[in-house]
């Protein structure tokens, strides 16, 4: 009897000891909230994946109370705040995220100006004026499932930002009160920037926050659109600044880059944009017979010529390579011609045909060399085939001769 009691006592002691040994502390919040229905449901797994929980913060860090106590968990005496009102969320998050000394303990490189930036944003201003429909911290970052932005599963990871913004900005009913378009995400999804980000996985490609800012989110506006583009497209911007278009665009109140390239729906540019053809952008402003259109036609001609030369060289070198000829050096040289074409396309932004022609000329010189290499390789291939045919004829004749000789001997 004593023996059984001792075993039971040891079992209870062991069960009590396990959480202590594993370093776990009691969390009465999760005990209940993991069993509740949405929106009050928070599972232990979800909370464990939260960056705040990983850094040692608990439910009480935001909601107050005492999660270690069954009795005082939701006691106002223990500072329990319960549900956080949307209007108070930025200030609550900002309590820690504006404290540089506190944040430094966890992540020395994390900025602490999010709240002040938020106050300058359209979202922040509207919230301050009492509009609780606008985005607050939790709308973009999540609530109990917050992950660092570097985590691809995070809603604010560069790969997911456009989708996160689109939750509100593509919702026609939700955005009705604000009189702004809701096609930005649809337009962006067709753009060259989205292709770079989502298809090629280039995380440096622009997404919503690259141009609009994140915590200080605001539309870039006509006056600043060029500044936004020029942060990446530096050389194009410099050329535009020196071009005759700068003054003309300013006089007409046109917003620089966006005038020709659009904003969210920036499709891959093509040489037809600078031409006098149907897909020309120039003809939007310039009339037929205009000197500017003649310049556009000249620029387009230069680009087209180099592109055709590159294609011609590539085709002949590929043919030679498929025939087993060694043309790797010429293939390598041809890359220089493609580089020259890229430079010429950038030079368009200066709208001076002579500058474009200079870049094109260096590419043309390369293509002349590579085309010649391709022609010579094919000539060499034909020479080899001729040599092979003659050799096979000689071998065939010898075989016939040998056969006849054997027949003669054996007859």
């Amino acid at each position, binding site marked *: 009897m004593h023996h059984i009691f001792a075993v039971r006592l040891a079992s209870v002691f062991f069960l009590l000891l396990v959480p202590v040994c594993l370093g776990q502390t009691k969390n009465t919040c999760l005990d209940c909230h993991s069993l509740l229905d949405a929106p009050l449901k928070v599972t232990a797994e979800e909370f464990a994946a939260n960056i705040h929980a990983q850094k040692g913060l608990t439910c009480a860090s935001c909601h107050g109370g005492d999660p270690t106590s069954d009795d005082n968990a939701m006691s106002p005496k223990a500072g329990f705040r319960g549900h956080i009102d949307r209007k108070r969320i930025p200030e609550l998050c900002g309590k820690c995220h504006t404290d540089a000394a506190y944040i430094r303990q966890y992540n020395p490189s994390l900025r602490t100006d999010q709240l002040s930036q938020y106050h300058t944003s359209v979202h922040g201003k509207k919230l301050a004026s009492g509009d609780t429909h606008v985005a607050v911290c939790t709308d973009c970052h999540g609530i109990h499932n917050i992950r660092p932005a570097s985590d691809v599963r995070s809603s604010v990871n560069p790969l997911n930002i456009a989708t996160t913004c689109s939750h509100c900005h593509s919702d026609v009913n939700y955005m009705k009160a604000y009189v702004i378009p809701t096609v930005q995400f649809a337009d962006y999804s067709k753009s060259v920037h989205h292709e770079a980000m989502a298809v090629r996985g280039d995380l440096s490609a622009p997404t919503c926050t690259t141009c609009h800012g994140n915590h200080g989110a605001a539309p870039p506006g006509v006056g600043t659109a060029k500044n936004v583009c020029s942060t990446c497209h530096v050389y194009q911007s410099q050329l535009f600044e020196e071009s005759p278009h700068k003054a003309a665009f300013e006089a007409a109140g046109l917003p620089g880059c966006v005038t020709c390239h659009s904003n969210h729906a920036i499709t891959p540019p093509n040489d037809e944009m600078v031409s006098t053809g149907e897909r020309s952008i120039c003809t939007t402003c310039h009339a037929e017979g205009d000197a500017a259109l003649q310049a556009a036609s000249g620029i387009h001609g230069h680009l087209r010529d180099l592109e055709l030369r590159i294609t011609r060289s590539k085709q002949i070198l590929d043919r030679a390579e498929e025939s087993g*000829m060694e043309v790797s050096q010429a293939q390598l040289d041809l890359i220089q011609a493609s580089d020259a074409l890229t430079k010429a396309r950038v030079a368009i932004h200066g709208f001076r045909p002579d500058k474009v022609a200079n870049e094109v000329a260096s590419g043309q010189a390369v293509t002349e060399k590579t085309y010649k290499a391709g022609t010579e390789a094919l000539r060499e291939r034909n020479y080899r085939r001729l040599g092979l045919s003659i050799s096979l004829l000689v071998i065939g004749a010898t075989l016939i001769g*040998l056969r006849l000789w054997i027949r003669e001997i054996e007859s």
Partner: protein
Amino acid sequence: MSPFARVQSWLDERFGWAELIAPLKHKTVPHHKLSYWYFLGGITLFLFVIQVTTGILLLLYYRPSANEAFESVQYISTQVRFGWLVRSIHSWSANLMIFTAFAHMFSVLFLRAYRKPRELTWLSGALLLFLALGFGFSGYLLPWNTLAFFATKVGTEVAGQVPVIGPWIMMFLRGGPDVTGATLTRFFGFHVAVLPGITTVLLGLHLALVQRFGISVPPRVEKQWEYSPHERQEMKFFPNFLLREVMAWYTALAALAVLAALFPWGLGTKADPFAPAPAGIKPEWYFLFAFQTLKLIPAKVLFMDGEVLGVLAFGAAGALWLILPFAEPKRRAGGYRAVIAFGIVAVTYIASMTVYGYLAK
């Protein structure tokens, strides 16, 4: 007196030429419907001579160091007059030679030409095939391109799996723990000095043994000839058989010319020891069956490492192959059937695994 007869007379006076070539004049070769298989050995020898000749020509320009090997082969292929042809013939001829050596070996097996008194002929021939594979393995690295580099890395790793002495073999082959310029220099040494030296001795022995015992007649043909002696047919070696052999050589030369001219051997890209191995890397076709087998063996088989088990199995199969004539059961009639069955299994296995390895991703 014709100039030819005058030279013959000159040689005869000094070296007894007529006496030297007398056995050749009297030498005969059995003539029957399976005689064509005899040409495979001669074609292999012809391709070996081409290998030696083109190899010497390549040596004039090739530089065996990690910094210069690729560039020197590139120079041979693009700048040296007919360099592309010499290199292409060397590469294609190597592959054809290994193919004809395999075909020769299996023809000897299925015609049962290995039986007494030709056991040593078989043994020397099988060793020559292994040497040919060694030539292929060592020569493959010499252009120092990406595929060769990683194939050598994988190949030497497999050698490293041999129990006890494996790590030592790997270090010896590589000239260090990794495949580096030291490995290239070492492989060059094996390819142009060590292997040709051993091959010359073994080839001399093999040819001497063929000369000593003559060409074997398949048992079935022999029995038929015993039953009806009037059906026995023999052909003079010189010139009848030799002329036919020359025809076979010319046919091989034509095949070689077509392959070398229409499909010049590629160069690839220069090896970068720091780059990751390209996806789906495979060895040359003659190692593909072994490579694919090692890939299919599970990581652990009972208590043994799968790869070690595979290497040991191939070692045992290779050893058994060498001693095949001695291992043929002789006590009971028809014991040879076990050897033939073994040969059929081997050729089927090698062919199917090679095709599987080629098609597998």
